[in-house]
């Protein structure tokens, strides 16, 4: 029992070798006795006729037409084979040499690699919203590293994403960990079961680094961007993140690291966190108290990490050294300065200093401008417009650092050195170079620093610490401890 089916494609040409290859492919399909694809020249028609494959449909084809002729065990096999042939004739929509292919647009790359599920956008801010929009249109979650994106655009993107069941991290999301994979500025931290929702980058970095030192580890770190919990944005991404982490089987506890949420938003966020069904820790800088009693509160990132790990970090008593450090200092030196590359670290230091009776002004928090003590977050929008972020290019900090080192009024200068993926390969270098200007000088300020990094980071952690110490920087075990030392130094002047 067999059936002969012919189909003609008018005016279709394909190279005869390609057609023979395709003929063999179709012949090999189940239920097909024989199949051939040929142009309808008289000679070809004769071949098909002799093979018993030609019927009146194929016989009517012209030399410019393509004949698909086959003998099958029934109509369904034949139709399957015809469909297969037609699909193969449609050709390849893209060539396979993708290793060398470069894609100029998010759309073309996404079409070529549809498995991608997260777009990491780090274009200049003016273009970021447009690319994020495109990414959402292609069904991807988005991490916007870029800053200088307007709050209106941020809100619109997050609303759209929520409707699509997609997550927007950022804008100005410097750090994230998804499934323990470090994204953008992030350290090689230990895997674990603690998940974090963080407003921005270095808070999450410092926390995850300390958690690793404490022997625990990170599951997810969702960066939501510094403005997410403002009343304008309404914590869209934060609320989604709480739901996601609450549902994530491998997350045991949730840590929130942020500045105080907007007045209208705060209660909703804390209510949701308190009732998410998992233990919650909040490190909300500048918020005195959270009313939801089942949220544990931490004042510093160290305290939060210790709560999460259920262990204490073995920290040397840095403030005890203050006396020795100021022993020979010129009495005219009375001022504390801090030059930060990490925004959240700057905020944390600001608050720790305040709690230790040192009032500073800074661009990280609302503050008293009359005080001479000052911290600067050099990664803030106003310093990065048209310039690289100081964690990418530490040389951005150097002119500021040289000014402060040589200012005769300065008693203590605080610095953060952030390691990890994304960061400069040798951030200590610029600091040690600047420190050379103090070589042989007796009347000089104390320079204290903290290295945010792990031993698995791509920079050599120990070498970085060693170089800084050699150059005269007094290293502290974490940022909040450095701020305490800074306050202690001022107290002993």
């Amino acid at each position, binding site marked *: 029992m067999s059936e002969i089916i012919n189909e003609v494609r008018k*005016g*279709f*040409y*394909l*190279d005869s070798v*390609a057609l023979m290859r395709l003929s063999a492919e179709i012949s090999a399909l189940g239920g097909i006795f024989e199949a051939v694809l040929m142009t309808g020249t008289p000679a070809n028609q004769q071949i098909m006729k002799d093979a018993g494959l030609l019927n009146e449909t194929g016989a009517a084809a012209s030399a*410019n037409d393509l004949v698909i002729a086959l003998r099958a065990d029934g109509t369904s096999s034949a139709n399957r084979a015809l469909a297969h042939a037609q699909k193969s*004739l*449609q*050709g*390849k*929509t*893209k*060539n*396979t*040499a993708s290793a*060398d292919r*470069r*894609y*100029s*647009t*998010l*759309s*073309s*790359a*996404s079409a070529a*690699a549809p*498995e*991608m*599920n*997260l*777009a*990491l*956008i*780090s*274009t200049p801010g003016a*273009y970021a919203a447009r*690319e994020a*929009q495109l*990414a959402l249109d292609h*069904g*991807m*979650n988005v991490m916007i*590293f870029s800053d200088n994106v307007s709050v209106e655009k941020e809100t619109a993107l997050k609303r759209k994403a929520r409707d699509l*069941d*997609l*997550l927007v991290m950022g804008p100005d999301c410097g750090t994230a960990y*998804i*499934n323990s*994979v*470090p*994204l953008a500025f992030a350290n090689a931290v230990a895997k674990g079961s603690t998940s974090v929702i963080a407003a921005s980058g270095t808070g999450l970095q410092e926390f995850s680094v300390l958690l690793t030192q404490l022997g625990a580890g990170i599951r*997810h770190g969702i960066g939501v961007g510094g403005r997410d919990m403002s009343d304008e944005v309404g914590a869209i991404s934060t609320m989604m993140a709480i739901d*996601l*982490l609450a*549902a*994530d089987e491998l997350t045991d506890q949730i840590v929130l690291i942020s500045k105080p949420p907007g007045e209208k938003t705060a209660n909703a966020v804390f209510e949701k966190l308190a009732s998410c069904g998992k233990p919650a820790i909040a490190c909300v800088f500048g918020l005195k108290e959270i009313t939801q009693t089942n949220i544990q509160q931490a004042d510093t990132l160290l305290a939060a990490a210790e709560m999460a790990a259920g262990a204490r970090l073995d920290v040397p008593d840095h403030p005890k050294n203050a006396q020795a450090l100021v022993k020979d200092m010129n009495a005219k030196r009375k001022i504390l300065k801090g030059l930060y590359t990490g925004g959240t670290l700057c905020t944390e230091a600001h608050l720790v200093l305040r709690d230790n009776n040192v009032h500073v002004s800074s661009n990280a928090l609302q503050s008293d401008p009359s005080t001479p003590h000052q911290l600067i977050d050099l990664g803030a929008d106003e310093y990065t417009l048209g310039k690289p972020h100081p964690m990418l290019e530490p040389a951005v900090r150097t002119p500021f650092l040289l000014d402060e080192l040589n200012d005769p009024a300065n008693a203590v200068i605080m610095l953060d050195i952030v390691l990890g*993926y*994304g960061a400069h390969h040798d951030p200590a270098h610029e600091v040690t170079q600047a420190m050379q200007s103090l070589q042989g000088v007796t009347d000089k300020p104390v320079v204290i620093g903290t290295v945010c990094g792990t031993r698995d980071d*791509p920079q050599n952690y120990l070498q970085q610490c060693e170089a800084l110490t050699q150059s005269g920087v007094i290293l502290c075990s974490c940022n909040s401890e450095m701020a305490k030392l800074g306050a202690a130094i001022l107290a002993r002047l």
Partner: protein
Amino acid sequence: MSASDLLTSGPKVLGVGLNGFIKDLQSQNIAALAVDWRPPATTDPHVLAAADHLSNDSVGESVDKANEKAIERMLSADPVLVEVQPAGDLIEGLGKHKILHAGPPLEWQSMCGPMRGAVCGAIVLEGWAKTLEAAEKLAAGGEIEFSPNHHHGAVGPMTGMTTQSMPLMVVENRTYGNRAYCAINEGLGKVMRFGGNDESVIEKLQWLESTLGPLLADTLLACDGVGLKNIIARGLSMGDEMHQRNVACTSLLLRELAPTMARVSEPDTAYEVLKFISGNDQFFLNVAMAMGKAIMDPVRDITNSSIVTAMSRNGTEFGIRVSGCGDEWFTAPVEMPRGLYFPGFSENDANPDMGDSTIVETVGLGGFAMAASPAVAGFVGAGSASDAANYTNQMAEICCTRNPEWTIPALDFAGVPSGIDVRQVVNSGITPTINTGIAHREPGIGQVGAGIVNAPLACFEQACRALDKRLSAV
């Protein structure tokens, strides 16, 4: 991929911006791909807004749908070279003192040197003036009516002169019944398409009119035309891209014509004509151009479609037409070609880009099919075969589809990119790459080199805004 899938299965990351982040992920064996991102070339926020509007939501869908229709018409075309006739018989109103030229509309005052030279030569050819000086006076005095080839179903290479007595080849699109015309290629050396206009040029044209044209007409009539789709398909696998390299297609066409030609003519005439064609590697270019026009004309005027239906230059301006905007031209100053020069010439001698031949790129050949023609990539300074592939792959980023019948062996038989989408041009900042000959800037000297040129982005920006305006008006 929903947000919870992301957390469960882990990140697979597409990077847009800093490549270092993607390299970091790749070093940890995480799936990550960096987009070769650059800021959009378009800086006008209105243009970007128009492109966004045309790309997104329901408007985007209606444009996509219209483009599908446009692509279907392109791919289902069946172009056949059917006959040769004098232009005056084919084109209504093409009579005394009327000259058709390449590119968007243009008056004498704005014409570049070669274009003026060709106009003067054409006037002498037609006998409207006895000398070139008298011809120039006639043209400068406003006595000649100028009109673009594209407005009359025709195309012409470089200066693209079409006047009443010139024999035109006719390509019929048998699927849609429309016809398109192009003059016969004059060969190399001093030729009117490069602005040549001396006696030898005129004599060559007269011979085309008296000898080659009629014999080609008889031949085509006797063999019921020559199907062109298959010739192109085979030519691509033989190293032609049909703009700068036509040696394979010319040979294939010659093979189709020669037996019948031998039968319908005197042996001496057949010898003369066959010798002329076989000595001119670019003979097929004009056939490919008429074919391009015949394929694209049924695509004109599809409401909402953002597909480019014509690209063309007149030596002064570059113009494009877009399906959803009908016969409106979007023009911008034409760019200078970059390329290699014949001995004794340099870019100082070059005329800005010129000709209707970009219809070939409009259907996915020429610069779009560079991967098929590594030899041409060498000509334009690219050199290696992989460079040639890059040109084609880049053009795929601004096209809706690939042509399943016109495939390129070196790209694993992927088809040539087809259907230029003005939205994708504006979004990516990638403009069409065009393979072109380079004319001397002075009239009468001819070709001095060959190279590539890009279509100006401004044409596509204008088209985007105009199409957006039309869609918003509904």
